[in-house]
Every structure is written in structure tokens, then in C-alpha cells.
């Protein structure tokens, strides 16, 4: 490699130097139609995750609006129970499995994490691309189901026996179960990529102790995904077996058990809440630090809290099952655990207050959304304290009170931070800053509409309205509150339209951002916006938690990586010392083809068990194509290396 030329730091990378040209050529993604499908760069895949997930958010939002329209008056005849049941199931499943996790965990994680680590690409980029296509496959299966009147109609947690073979004829519940397989394999794939990236591709010097909080949280979430998602795959897998090949796991007449399903599902289901919320908290920590113009207060307590949340999150699942009549001792234990998990979240809140208090708050648009998060999530968290108490939970469980609660938690914990994050990283993704005025309109319309709709639902729950009813009697006096709740939809819709307009407009004609429009500390802001295909001209090194704020001007940069092949640096998990150089496998169409064959096998297995043996050979062939080494001649190994 040429070392004669002067070494240019990352923050001066204009893409003009010879090194930049060589790297750009080496790291180029192929163009054209098939090139689009063989792209493996994390920024592209991350944006695709986000855009796709947002499309499904809008679709599920349309379903929500339809439900609010149906409930606008008692005994409304807009739709019957058959359609309504499909719609609320689709709304819940889409929001959780096709929007919240793919957006908050996969989307933001895949885009931001490698940049924050100072890496050239995510670890296992092909697995990452495969995960994206598999997620799209699952989404198409679910929505294809709805379009063909095969939309699941058993609720987003599909309790047996209602979702079992005896009470859900046809393939509706199969579609739901198989969608779970798709999306969970996708999330697990990304979890492996992100955890490996965070542990092994951090810039030299970024010890665990100096890792940005966002990386800590992504690491914890990846671990939670790895340990929680298998439970739901087993739950939905056993359900599929019961439905398709006649096993008896959930058949009480043959020694099966209906509560087993609930245990398996909620063992995943509660950690899932934190898998959705922690990315939001990660974004908020990043924003609070940046817009308070000071280092985050309480780095260690926040990290410890996040790790604690990861652990305690696995010991509270039974609070979704209080109404099944468990022994009192276990009820008390799970009440205590559910209350305990408030503490780490409380610590994070207090640290954010302290950071703002002693900082200099610049209330730019992303920070406005962060304040929206504080308000909304706080209400959701506090009503969650009520739900941890067994007697109260027995009253409001499965009512609109719970619906209100988890919308405050999930919209507060995921959607508000998501908008904050989109406005924050929009300049990095597009090179332009999103319009602040439109953004404020978006915020206030959405915030007001959201509170009108969902605060009202608390009252409906206390007045005894169960969830998942397609209609109600005028004698129950629920109609005025329902009307009020439905009216908030107008504001939310308007807000979202403003957001879409803002995105489309600012992408083309927003203010030019430059490398670091917010003056943030993360490594992702040291490269151009949008980042080049190789991310960093030189892999940086860091000497503190907030690299761009505290690194001295002569902070070393890494040299010696080859620029004729896609070489990346692997560092030590704990102290981030350079360990060896690894080659990025580069773009490939095979992950897409593998996702196609796997999807075909999954879908086919709904209709016949023979799909598995028939589908296996193509899957193996595509996986071989993916993994078989090819391309350039073997890199010359250093003497004595082997």
C-alpha cells in the first residue's frame, strides 16, 4: 500500500484524496437492479430497515384509525367482528413485530452502531442484509394474508386454545406464527451482527468504560434479543406444530396445557417491551448529552441501570398472567420484581434531569421530541406501577386502561424517541437538516392528538370497557369517551402528514448539514454527511467517552489497513486493543437469494410439511453460494502467521 502520501484525518475527508478514491473503489457497492439487492453496507441496510418499518407503521396506523372509526359510536355497523378481529390483530402484530423492533433495534442499530464504533462496516454484513430481506418476507406474508382475507384474527399474542387448530380453522393463525419465525430470525441475525460489532469492531482506545451509552444499550438489547426471542419461536413453533401436524402441546384433553403457551410467550413478551424501550432510552441519553452541551451526568449509574433492566426484565413476565389465578406467593414475587424494574428507569430519568439542570439546554427539534418522551413515557411508567399491583391489575387487566398504559409506554418509549432520533440523524443520513418549523408543527399536532386519544382510554378502562370488543352497547355510556378518543386521530394524522412532507422536502432542499451540525460527541459526526462507503478514511482511535469533545487535536488515527481489499480492524472485547485484520465479505446477491428460498420454505410449510424437505436443498445451495469463499486471490499471509 502507498504510505507516502500525507495522512488526512477523518474530519477533513472531502473524498478528494487519492486514498479516498482507492477506498471508494474498493468499498463500492455494485449498482443497477441486482446491485440494489446485493448491497451489504450497513448505512444502506439501516436506512432500508427504517423506511420499511416506517411504511408498516403507517399501514398499522391506518388500521388503528379504522378501529377508532368503528368505535366512534355504539353498535356501529362499519365493520363486523370478523374484519375487526383481523384488524386489531394486524395492528398489534405489525406495530410490535414489523415496526417497533425493526425500527428501534434493527434500523437505528444497524445505521448508527458501526459509525459510533468507528468501524468500516457492520460485522457479518451479509447476515445483516439477509436479516433485512427475511424481515421484509415476514412483513409481506402477514400483509399478504390480510389482503387475501387470511389476516390473523386471534390477537397479537394469539393465546391458545383460541389460536389452536380447534378454534381457528384455515391458515390465519398459521400466517401469524410463521410471521413470528421470519421477524425473530431477522432480529436474532441483527443481534449477532450488532453484538459482534460492538464487542469486536470498536475503534482502538474505546474500552468498555468509554463506550457511548447508546452502544451499551444496543449491546444489552442484543443480549436480550438473543435470550428472549427463542422463547417466542418455541411458542409459535409449538403452536404451528399443534395446528399443522397434530401435536398436543396445548390440548388439555391429552396432557397439554394452555398456560404453557402464555409462559413461553411472556417470557419473551416482557423483555420485548424493554427491547423496544431501551433503544429509545439510548437515543434520549445521546440527545440529552448533546443538547445540554455537557457530558452526560451519571454515566456509570445509567449503564448499570441498563444492564440491570436487561436482567430484571426477564423476571417479570408473570405480571401479564395475574388473572389466571396463580399462587399468592408467586404473585407477590412478581409484583416485587415488576416494581423493582422501576428503579433503573428512575435512575435514568434522574440522571437526565441532572444533565439538563447543570447544562446549557439548546431546545433544538430533536430535544423537543425528547421532552415529549419525558412527559408521555412518565405517564406510561407510572400507570405501569399500578399494573404491577396484583389487585389493581386484576381490575384493569385486558381493559382500555391497559391499552392506554402500553400506548403511553410504547409510543412514549419508542415513537417519540424515534422521531427525535430521525430528526437527529437525518442530517447524517441525507446531508441536510430537517425543517425545524414543520418539525414543531409535527410535534405539537402529534403530541396533542396522542394525549387526547390515549389519555381518554384510561377512563374507558376504569369504566369497565374491555379491550378487543368490536362494538359496545349504548347502555354502557362509553360512547362519548370513545368519540373523544377517536377525535385525537385527526391531529395525529395531520402531524404524520406534516412529518412526511418535511422529510420529502428537507431531503431535497433542507439546510446543508456539514459533518457535525449539532456539535455532538459521537464518532459518526466526524465523517462527512452522508458517510462515504468506507465510513472512515482512517479508523479513528479514542481516548475518552465523548471522542469529538475531549480527544486532543493530535489524537492518533489508524494506518496500515489495506485499501485494495475491504480490510477491517478487529479489536479486543474489553480494552479495544487491535487484535487482527479481517476482511469484509463485500456485496453479494446470495443473502437475498437465501432469504427468498428460506421465505418460500417457511410459507410453503404452512400448506404442506413437504415444503421442508423440498425447500431444504435450495436453502442449502443459496447458503453455500453465500459462504463459499471466492473473488480475489488469497491475501498473502504474513510470515509466521500460520
Amino acid at each position, binding site marked *: 500500500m502507498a504510505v507516502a502520501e500525507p495522512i488526512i484525518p477523518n474530519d477533513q475527508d472531502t473524498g478528494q484524496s487519492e486514498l479516498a478514491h482507492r477506498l471508494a473503489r474498493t468499498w463500492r457497492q455494485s449498482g443497477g437492479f441486482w446491485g440494489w439487492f446485493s448491497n451489504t453496507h450497513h448505512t444502506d441496510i439501516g436506512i432500508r430497515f427504517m423506511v420499511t418499518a416506517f411504511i408498516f407503521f403507517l399501514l398499522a396506523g391506518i388500521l388503528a384509525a379504522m378501529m377508532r372509526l368503528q368505535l366512534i359510536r355504539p353498535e356501529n355497523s362499519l365493520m363486523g367482528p370478523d374484519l375487526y378481529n383481523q384488524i386489531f390483530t394486524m395492528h398489534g402484530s405489525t406495530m410490535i413485530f414489523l415496526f417497533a423492533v425493526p425500527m428501534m433495534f434493527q434500523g437505528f442499530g444497524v445505521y448508527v452502531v458501526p459509525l459510533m464504533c468507528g468501524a468500516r462496516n457492520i460485522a457479518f454484513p451479509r447476515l445483516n442484509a439477509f436479516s433485512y430481506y427475511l424481515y421484509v418476507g415476514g412483513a409481506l406474508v402477514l400483509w399478504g394474508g390480510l389482503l387475501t382475507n387470511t389476516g390473523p384474527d386471534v390477537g397479537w399474542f394469539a393465546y391458545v386454545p383460541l389460536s389452536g387448530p380447534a378454534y381457528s380453522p384455515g391458515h390465519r393463525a398459521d400466517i401469524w406464527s410463521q410471521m413470528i419465525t421470519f421477524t425473530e430470525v431477522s432480529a436474532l441475525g441483527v443481534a449477532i451482527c450488532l453484538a459482534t460489532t460492538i464487542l469486536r469492531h470498536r475503534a482502538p482506545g474505546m474500552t468498555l468504560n468509554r463506550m457511548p451509552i447508546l452502544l451499551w444499550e444496543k449491546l444489552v438489547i442484543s443480549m436480550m434479543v438473543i435470550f428472549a426471542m427463542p422463547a417466542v419461536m418455541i411458542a409459535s413453533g409449538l403452536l404451528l406444530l399443534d395446528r399443522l401436524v397434530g401435536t398436543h402441546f396445548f390440548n388439555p384433553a391429552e*396432557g397439554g396445557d394452555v398456560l404453557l403457551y402464555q409462559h413461553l410467550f411472556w417470557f419473551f413478551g416482557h423483555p420485548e417491551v424493554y427491547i423496544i424501550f431501551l433503544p429509545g432510552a439510548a437515543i434520549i441519553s445521546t440527545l440529552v448529552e448533546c443538547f445540554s452541551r455537557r457530558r452526560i451526568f451519571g454515566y456509570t449509574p445509567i449503564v448499570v441501570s441498563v444492564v440491570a433492566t436487561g436482567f430484571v426484565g426477564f423476571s417479570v413476565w408473570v405480571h401479564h398472567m395475574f388473572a389466571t389465578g396463580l399462587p399468592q406467593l408467586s404473585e407477590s414475587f412478581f409484583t416485587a420484581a415488576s416494581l423493582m424494574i422501576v428503579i433503573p428507569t428512575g435512575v435514568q430519568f434522574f440522571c437526565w434531569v441532572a444533565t439538563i439542570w447543570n447544562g446549557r439546554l439548546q431546545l433544538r427539534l430533536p430535544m423537543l421530541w425528547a421532552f415529549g418522551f419525558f412527559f408521555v413515557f412518565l405517564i406510561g411508567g407510572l400507570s405501569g406501577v399500578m399494573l404491577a399491583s396484583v389487585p389493581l391489575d386484576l381490575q384493569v387487566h385486558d381493559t382500555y386502561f391497559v391499552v392506554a398504559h402500553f400506548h403511553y409506554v410504547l409510543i412514549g418509549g419508542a415513537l417519540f424517541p424515534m422521531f427525535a432520533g430521525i430528526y437527529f440523524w437525518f442530517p447524517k443520513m441525507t446531508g441536510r437538516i430537517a425543517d425545524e418549523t414543520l418539525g414543531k408543527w409535527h410535534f405539537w399536532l402529534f403530541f396533542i392528538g396522542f394525549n387526547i386519544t390515549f389519555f381518554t382510554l384510561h377512563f374507558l378502562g376504569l369504566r369497565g370497557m374491555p379491550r378487543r370488543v368490536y362494538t359496545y352497547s349504548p347502555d354502557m355510556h362509553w360512547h362519548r369517551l370513545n368519540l373523544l378518543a377517536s377525535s385525537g386521530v385527526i391531529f395525529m394524522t395531520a402531524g404524520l402528514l406534516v412529518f412526511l412532507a418535511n422529510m420529502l422536502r428537507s431531503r431535497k432542499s433542507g439546510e446543508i448539514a456539514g459533518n457535525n451540525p449539532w456539535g455532538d460527541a459521537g464518532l459518526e459526526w466526524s465523517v462527512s454527511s452522508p458517510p462515504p462507503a468506507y465510513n472512515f478514511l482512517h479508523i479513528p482511535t479514542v481516548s475518552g467517552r465523548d471522542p469529538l469533545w475531549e480527544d486532543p487535536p493530535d489524537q492518533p488515527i489508524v494506518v496500515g489497513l489495506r485499501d485494495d481489499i475491504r480490510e477491517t480492524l478487529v479489536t479486543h472485547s474489553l480494552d479495544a486493543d487491535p487484535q487482527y485484520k479481517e476482511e469484509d465479505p463485500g456485496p453479494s446477491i446470495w443473502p437475498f437469494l437465501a432469504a427468498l428460498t428460506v421465505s418460500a420454505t417457511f410459507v410453503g410449510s404452512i400448506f404442506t410439511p413437504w415444503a421442508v424437505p423440498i425447500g431444504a436443498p435450495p436453502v442449502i445451495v443459496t447458503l453455500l453460494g453465500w459462504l463459499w469463499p471466492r473473488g480475489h486471490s488469497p491475501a498473502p499471509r504474513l510470515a509466521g502467521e500460520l
Partner: protein
Amino acid sequence: MSTFDPPVPRPMTLDVSGLPSVAFGHRNTTWLANVFYMAIEGMMFAMMFATYFYLRTRSTNWPPGHLPPALRYGIANAVVFLVSVIPARWVAKRAPSGDRGAIRKGLLILALFALIATAIRVFEFTTLNCRWTDDAYSSTIWVLIGMHSGHLITELIETLVLFVMSFTSKMEGTRLADAAINSDYWYFVVVTGLMIDVLIYGTTRFL
């Protein structure tokens, strides 16, 4: 852009050109990914074990109205699993040397063991003394052993692919590390296989 200090040239560098381009053992990223993968699969097995014991509490007799699975093939497979650790360990030890001939031999023996285990597994299915449609107990036994067979076949294919690769010049660098990681995965298959044997052949008799 910059509202900040004017750019400063950075003369200091960290030269990594001398670092190796392949790592064995826990330093390898694929090794780490394999650990995560085993954690995922291990969780799946753990959930199935939990299912097994949970369903046990819902039944007074165990196995409910069946003979326990016949021991012969189970014990045979347990022995095969235990012995197969030797070639697996050998491949892992020899992989860093880059000695393709030795690796080829090791992988061939490992693949043979996997093949024998798969063949015995086919007979195991015939001596379970139940069908999956009989009751919840039978369903659990079948899914446990079926899940493990899936892993066994995956491992068999992976070993065969590496074996074929070891005839070509592709078997170098990071592929050598893959051969070693393949052995780690085989240990996982062995450990889960033995655990399932204890569940299927042991607890059905003593629980």
C-alpha cells in the same frame, strides 16, 4: 462546516499493518458469533426442556400410557457422541497449522461420526414407543429429538462442506478458523444430544 477549532493535522498514527489477518479461538469474530448462535439454540433447547418438565407436572403417570423409549439406540448414540469428541478436538488443534491433509482426515472422521449418529437417529425414531399425535408427552419427545436431529444434520452438512473445501486452495486463512469453530459447534451438538438422551431415556424411567 465547523463552528469549532480549525482543523489540526494529526501526525500521530497507530500502524496496524503488522497485525495478522486471521485469528483462532476466542479472538475470532466468527467464534463470537458462533457463541451467540449457540446461546440462541441453547435457549431454544432450554425452553423445550422447560416445556417437558412443565408438562410432566400436568400428568400423573409418566410416560402417560406408553412404554418408555427403548434404550439400545439411545445408548449407542450417546457412545458415538462421546467418542466423536476426539476427532473434533483433533481438527480444532490441527486447524491453525494449516495442514490441509490432517484437517481433511479429521473432518472426514468427524463427518463419519455425524453420519453414523444420524443413521442411528433414524432407528431411534422407530423405538420411541409413541407417535407425536398420541399426546403431549409424545409430542414433546418427538420435538426434542427432532430439534436435535435438525442440528445434527446441519452439522453434518457443514462438516462435509468444510471437508470438500479442504481439497481446494480455499482452505486457508479464516477458513481454517472456521474448521476449528465447526468443532465448537460439534461439542454443542454432543452436549445437547446427551442432555436429550438423559431426558428421553432417563427421566421417562425415573421421573
